[in-house]
């Protein structure tokens, strides 16, 4: 166990180092190529960044290839004697200017300057080299560079000029290049240019399409966000608007039942009681519908903080005891002494789960008892268990009762009041808290609902708790 742990931690730390290196390199790269802030437009910025990025590689490579390597390997090499080396050094200076330009708002002038510099160097090489043919081939490079750094129309012009320049007699035939070599070079540069321009055109179209699509997507996302915000607002407003008149109805019926609006005849009192009970049921329904729609929209936050299981159980007992007493049921609460005194979780949501389960139990139990217990299952889990001696749930219904608006069958809905949302809320809330709901039931003798949760102990009490064990 400990061996595996240490191996995994080593590989993890190697991974961390690699990630750190990549991260640092990425930052250096950003620092070297980040376009000037005044350059706007994704395509403009991309070109500026590409130009800077290319030069970051080309400048040192040219320097190494033409100066450092010959100095180190050719004993007779003298820097300023070879005219081609001098040309490359001039080109290096010009390319450094291109790099500086690429980091300014004038980055667009960097690309033509780079192409001119490279062309000039190639032409110079052609004039001085023993065998100019390989260098002529490099003229194709211009079109490639143009396709990467310039708009399509400019790329076509550069491609045309590069290809045509192969045929320029004074440039290319100082040493009397053979006609077949010249044809080869011409064909090569022509094909390279055509392919590059075609590829560049296709890429531009793709980029354009992707950009259009991503703009459309971004617009759609913005619209969806706005719509969901409006929906949230609507739900919140609706909740408030529905509750206000309902609160008035409930309040005034209570005022009447308290005898504050004069004495009520017995029948009027019964009717008022029914109004009151139904209004409360409607209020509960509104709350449940809002709860379930919030949960489904992923807009319920779980606030994990320390709470005392004993206090939670106490709250449930206070709320459920009157209901149980009304139905002449005994209410038993059990707190497992093995549970820590303090745990971490969302006490409000746990309370909601327990209240839903317990009032369900009261609703479906005619005689006997309701037991609410908080138990420690093992090192990692604890559970709330609510069991009753009620009518029970037939096996075929044990899955569907957690769906919305499901009670065991249509007739039970009339017999047992309720929103039909309680268990759906319990399940959704339990899932949000990494919990798990199970039901065990025997028809006619009762049901047991168990919701298990991961056991989390607050940091400050953890050491005490491990010592106790």
């Amino acid at each position, binding site marked *: 166990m400990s061996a595996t742990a240490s191996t995994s931690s080593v590989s993890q730390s190697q991974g961390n180092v690699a990630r750190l290196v990549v991260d640092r390199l990425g930052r250096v790269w950003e620092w070297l190529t980040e376009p000037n802030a005044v350059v706007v437009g994704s395509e403009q910025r991309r070109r500026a960044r590409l130009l800077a990025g290319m030069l970051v590689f080309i400048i040192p490579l040219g320097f190494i290839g033409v100066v450092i390597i010959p100095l180190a390997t050719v004993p007779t090499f003298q820097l300023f004697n070879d005219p081609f080396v001098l040309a490359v050094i001039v080109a290096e200076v010009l390319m450094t200017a291109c790099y500086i330009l690429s980091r300014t708002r004038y980055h667009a002038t960097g690309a033509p300057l780079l192409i001119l510099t490279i062309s000039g160097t190639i032409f110079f090489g052609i004039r001085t080299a023993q065998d100019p043919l390989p260098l002529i081939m490099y003229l194709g490079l211009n079109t490639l560079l143009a396709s990467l750094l310039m708009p399509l129309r400019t790329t076509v012009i550069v491609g045309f000029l590069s290809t045509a320049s192969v045929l320029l007699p004074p440039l290319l035939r100082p040493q009397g290049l053979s006609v077949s070599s010249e044809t080869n070079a011409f064909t090569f540069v022509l094909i390279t240019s055509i392919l590059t321009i075609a590829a560049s055109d296709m890429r531009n179209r793709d980029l354009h399409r992707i950009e259009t699509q991503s703009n459309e997507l971004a617009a759609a996302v913005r619209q969806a966000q706005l719509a969901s915000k409006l929906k949230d607002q609507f739900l919140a407003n609706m909740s*408030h608007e529905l*509750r206000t008149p*309902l*609160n*008035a109805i409930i309040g005034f019926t*209570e005022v009447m039942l*308290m005898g504050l*609006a004069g004495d009520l005849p017995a029948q009027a009192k019964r009717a008022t009681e029914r109004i009151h009970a139904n209004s409360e049921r409607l209020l509960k329904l509104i709350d449940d519908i809002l709860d379930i729609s919030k949960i489904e929209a992923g807009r319920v936050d779980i*606030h994990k903080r320390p709470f005392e299981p004993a206090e939670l159980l106490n709250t449930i007992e206070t709320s459920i005891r009157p209901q149980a007493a009304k139905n002449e049921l005994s209410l038993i609460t059990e707190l497992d002494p093995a549970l820590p005194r303090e745990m971490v979780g969302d006490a409000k949501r746990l309370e909601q789960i327990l209240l839903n389960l317990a009032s369900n139990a009261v609703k479906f139990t005619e005689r006997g008892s309701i037991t609410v217990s908080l138990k420690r299952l093992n090192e990692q889990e604890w559970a709330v268990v609510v069991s009753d001696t009620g009518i029970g749930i037939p096996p075929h219904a044990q899955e569907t009762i957690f769906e919305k608006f499901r009670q065991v069958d249509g007739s039970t809905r009339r017999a047992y009041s309720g929103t039909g949302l309680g268990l759906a809320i319990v399940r959704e809330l339990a899932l949000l808290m990494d919990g798990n709901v199970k039901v065990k039931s025997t028809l006619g003798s009762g049901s047991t609902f168990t919701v298990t949760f991961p056991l989390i102990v607050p940091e400050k009490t953890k050491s005490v708790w491990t010592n106790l064990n």
Partner: protein
Amino acid sequence: MSEWDSATADHILIVDDDPDTREILDLVLGTLEIPVHQARDGREALNDILTSRPRLIMLDLSMPGLDGRAVLDALRVSADTAALPVIVFTASPVTPELAEQLHVPPSRILRKGNLSMTRLRDIALGILGRPFAQSMFDTQPIRSEDS
């Protein structure tokens, strides 16, 4: 609504923009045999608090103009008014976060519709029945001469 009279300075102040809620609270708290004042918004509430001295404030949160939060903030400006017992009576769900935002103990925030009026009356009676100066902020007690 009862007239304020300097001889019987203490009264209950109901602050809510909804006339139904004001009337229900007036009827229920009227049984405590203490004068009840009504205010339709934060401005009227502060006027009442400045001219007389309520023994208990039932405060709604969302009101047009000066809302309940603004009233709570205004009360905290002076130690005198900060000591007044307030019950926040709101339509919003009561969460630990709300209590923290308002700096009011959760037990003093009641949600409309979620508790019976009998219970509300008991809670009010519990606060009024204590020695007069017991406040929600546990600052210095107010002497009746102050009002």
